[in-house]
């Protein structure tokens, strides 16, 4: 049941076709993990909080550094050296006090991943490294939680949604790790991709539209092009392949 304040706060989205008060109530009950509160995690968490997602768990072990501030818009100059999740929780709670923010200042690893995501309705991949992305992808599949991948480099970005057991997963598409380097990026790129990730989560929870599944979105900001590439589920995928193929599912 929505309160009068909530009906007013979310009025503009409640009147969207297919959304309604029922959609808003779904968002209110939803629990979403945002893994990373950097360039991607900032816009993703901001828009999920603004939309009224009931519980948002933000996971990040880092502290705010000066070199983060060109893109990680949840963190401001006054937050330097502060825990990123504390900085994020403060801003998100001020943006929307009706949303429960769970800051988790931990490094995601094989031992804690399941406990960090169990019971949640969606996972936003807002990491800055691929080993953790693969961990999240596998945990999402094992726990049957939709997973929304995003990644950036310079003015280029990617996004893809994974519905475990039904659609291609991150490991179906990628096998290796990108070369290790300090990646170039400007804030507008993760702003685009993080917003797309939040869009996917909201659509999934509310049950509207067509998800970005079995398709990889390639965003080229330099030439302002969006390209959709078809991806297939790999029967021999290490993460989501069928048992006959040596997989876990």
């Amino acid at each position, binding site marked *: 049941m929505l309160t009068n304040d909530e009906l007013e706060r979310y009025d503009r989205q409640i009147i969207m076709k297919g959304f309604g008060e029922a959609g808003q109530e779904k968002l209110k009950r939803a629990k979403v993990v945002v893994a990373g509160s950097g360039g991607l995690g900032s816009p993703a968490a901001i828009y999920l909080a603004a939309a009224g997602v009931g519980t948002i768990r933000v996971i990040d072990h880092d502290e705010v550094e000066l070199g983060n501030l060109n893109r990680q818009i949840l963190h401001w100059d006054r937050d330097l050296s502060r825990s990123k999740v504390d900085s994020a929780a403060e801003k998100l709670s001020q943006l929307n006090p009706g949303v429960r923010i769970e800051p988790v200042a931990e490094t995601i690893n094989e031992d804690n991943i399941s406990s960090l995501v169990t019971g949640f309705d969606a996972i936003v991949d807002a990491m800055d490294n691929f080993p953790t992305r693969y961990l999240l992808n596998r945990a999402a599949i094992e726990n049957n939680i939709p997973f929304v991948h995003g990644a950036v*480099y*310079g003015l280029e970005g990617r996004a893809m949604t994974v519905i475990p057991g039904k659609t291609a997963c991150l490991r179906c598409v990628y096998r290796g790790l990108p070369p290790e380097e300090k990646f170039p990026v400007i804030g507008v790129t993760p702003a685009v991709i993080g917003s797309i990730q939040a869009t996917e989560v909201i659509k999934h929870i509310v049950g509207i539209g067509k998800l970005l599944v079995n398709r990889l979105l390639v965003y080229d900001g330099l030439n302002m092009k969006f*390209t959709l590439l078809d991806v297939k589920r790999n029967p021999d995928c290490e993460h989501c392949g069928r048992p006959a193929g040596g997989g876990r599912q």
Partner: protein
Amino acid sequence: MSVKINIPSYLQSFTNDSEVIEVDGSTIHECLNHLIKKFPEIGDKVFAKDGELHNYVTIYVDGEFAYQEQLVKPVEDGTELHLLYVLGGG
């Protein structure tokens, strides 16, 4: 066969900033080899020393994902390839 290869912005510095390169070849592998013949510096960005694609490079043929073993498959005139790199940034 004339084939277009879309180059990710990450690699465009190796193709004189060109976004699309037109190559000839009857298989995906031949097309990639022609790309490397035109722009030799891109070679070790695409293939590992063992001659296999780097495991962080993926190829799409007319918008569809292609596995490593499909590199030997024939391509038709007008085929469009996308050469993608795994992006790690967030």
